[in-house]
């Protein structure tokens, strides 16, 4: 039932609308709205009940184990939300003077400093609102650097073929061309292929380490040398930072610019799709180009640095200071963990991933890189299972929903056939992991003895498999009263 179907003409919520009848109206007659917008007329109880019940149809970290590879679905501490939503923080207008926001700016400044320390980078901007925006900004910074040096021909960005889709998409949005570099059987970028691809048109290489295949690019120092020797710069996609937080600094690997996903590594909420935050860290060469604003400190006072402070900045990516509330949540998280806690993140994320990988192998699953350590995630391939039983990775994912677990990431990275990318995160206990292995074991047995049960899963969810072809062919993207 849609909220519109609960609607009854004339139903109002008097306590929610302004009390005083408006006195003056100077909107010209010709500009007054005549059509009635399709907003529901429901009581407050109807609305509360409706949306509360809808929420209960969702899987979430607060309700289910969510081993989505590359998403880092770790527990979102409640304190982060509570403290970011203190009334004074919520009430502050973005254009209010800096001296009305010293508390807020202190949190952001300290977050900048902590991110610098964690990554080894020389400067940080908290402005980008998501990883993709961070990537766009990072590529723009690389371009700006080359143009400033008179090397405007460098317009090609190299991307491993296993990269996340936002990498090539961001490069193209930035006016660059994209060239893909092949990944070898071990899941690493082939130095020889990279050497053949670099040249005077190379602006830079975008890399995730550990890679999207869940393994550490141990040729990273060779890669770094090849790209830098050819005059290009190195961009680090920080999506997998959870694996090495506290262990390895991206700056030490030679990266010139990096983005972090605060909604992954720093546990800000995924919120059903967002909001996130994708802060950028820059090495000394690229600091002048960081997007605005950056939080500056003059003595005791904080302020937002602007175009006069950073004249070579690539500019602003949004109207204000980025997803400020998300940044406050990340700040609280980082303070709660502190030096020791942040170090534990990489350690226990890696412990959990290696343990889970081993247990799933014992249960009969095939791992994509059996000779490699898992980083914070690993890939299981169901190619053989499909050939034997017809059961695919998609089917296994759907059957997991029946067992009370959210599915891992499926069919990413594209290079491995019938893959599941599994990332437990450090906040899950051994008991949870063992229960997951148990469920996977059951599904494997079902695949062999009752494949139809798996192929037609899920059975226990609010809806079963949906007709996506119908959705894409017959667009029903907005409810209309007469049509339903």
């Amino acid at each position, binding site marked *: 039932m849609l909220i519109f179907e609960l609607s009854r003409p004339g139903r109002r919520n008097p306590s929610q609308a302004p009390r005083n009848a408006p006195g003056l109206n100077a909107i010209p007659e010709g500009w007054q709205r005549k059509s009635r917008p399709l907003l529901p007329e429901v009581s407050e109880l109807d609305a509360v009940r409706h949306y509360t019940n809808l929420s209960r149809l969702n899987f979430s970290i607060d309700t289910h184990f969510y081993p989505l590879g590359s998403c880092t679905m770790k527990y979102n501490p409640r304190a982060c939300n509570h403290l970011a939503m203190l009334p004074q923080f919520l009430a502050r207008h973005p254009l209010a003077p800096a001296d009305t926001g010293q508390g807020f700016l202190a949190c952001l400044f300290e977050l900048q400093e902590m991110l610098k320390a964690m990554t080894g980078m020389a400067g940080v901007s908290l402005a980008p609102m998501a990883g993709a925006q961070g990537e766009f900004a990072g590529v723009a910074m690389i371009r700006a650097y080359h143009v400033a040096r008179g090397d405007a021909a460098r317009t090609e960005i190299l991307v491993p073929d296993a990269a996340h889709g936002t990498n090539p998409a961001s490069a193209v949005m930035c006016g660059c061309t994209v060239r893909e570099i092949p990944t070898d059987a071990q899941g690493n970028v082939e130095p020889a292929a990279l050497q053949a691809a670099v040249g005077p048109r190379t602006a830079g290489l975008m890399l995730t380490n550990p890679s999207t295949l869940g393994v550490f690019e141990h040729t990273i120092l060779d890669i770094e040398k090849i790209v830098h020797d050819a005059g290009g710069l190195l961009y680090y996609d920080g999506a997998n930072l959870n694996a090495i937080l506290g262990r390895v600094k991206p700056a030490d690997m030679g990266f010139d610019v990096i983005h972090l996903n605060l909604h992954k590594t720093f546990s800000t909420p995924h919120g059903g799709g967002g909001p996130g935050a994708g802060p950028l860290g820059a090495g000394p060469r690229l600091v002048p180009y960081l997007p605005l604003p950056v939080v500056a400190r003059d003595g005791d006072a904080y302020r937002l640095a602007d175009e006069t402070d950073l004249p070579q900045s690539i500019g602003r990516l949004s109207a204000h200071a980025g997803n400020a509330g998300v940044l406050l949540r990340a700040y609280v998280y980082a303070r709660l963990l502190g030096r020791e806690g942040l170090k534990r993140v990489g350690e226990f994320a890696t412990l959990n991933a290696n343990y889970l990988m081993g247990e799933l192998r014992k249960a009969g699953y095939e791992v994509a890189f059996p000779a490699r350590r898992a980083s914070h995630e690993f890939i299981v391939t169901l190619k053989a299972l499909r050939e034997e039983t017809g059961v695919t990775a998609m089917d296994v994912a759907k059957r997991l929903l029946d067992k009370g677990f959210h599915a891992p990431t499926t069919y990413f990275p594209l290079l491995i056939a019938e893959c599941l990318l599994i990332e437990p995160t450090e906040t899950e206990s051994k008991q949870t992991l063992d229960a997951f292995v148990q469920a996977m074991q059951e599904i494997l047995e079902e695949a062999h003895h009752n494949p139809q049960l798996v192929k037609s899963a899920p059975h226990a969810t609010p809806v079963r498999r949906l007709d*996506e072809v119908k959705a894409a*062919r017959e667009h029903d993207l907005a409810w209309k009263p007469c049509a339903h």
Partner: protein
Amino acid sequence: MTTPANLKYTKSHEWVKQEADGTVTVGITHHAQEMLGDLVFIETPAIGRKLKQGEQCAVAESVKAAADIYAPLSGEVTAANAELADAPEKVNADAYAAWMFRLQPNDPGELAGLLDAAAYQVIAGADKR
């Protein structure tokens, strides 16, 4: 499904039919539609557009992928199949009957470079995903 012998093919899975009036008709192969899955949308090139061989000129979109379709020959687009706008599934039903666009080629030398049915069959067979 057998690959029709009276058509020519490209490595990028387009088929080409030479018409009596000198134009060619272009579509995508059975193998291509199988890889894409149920098609939900076909974007055809504008009539009058001048294409170079190998230039991206159309898109076949399914739920899980959007495949670029490339001009098999250089020339000018003379027609596009309007039926596919409402019924992209025709391509799934019979890829060789569901034509996408026609063009007037302007470089006769290019025809020799197209693949025959046997050569295309090898490519399609190797492309097992």
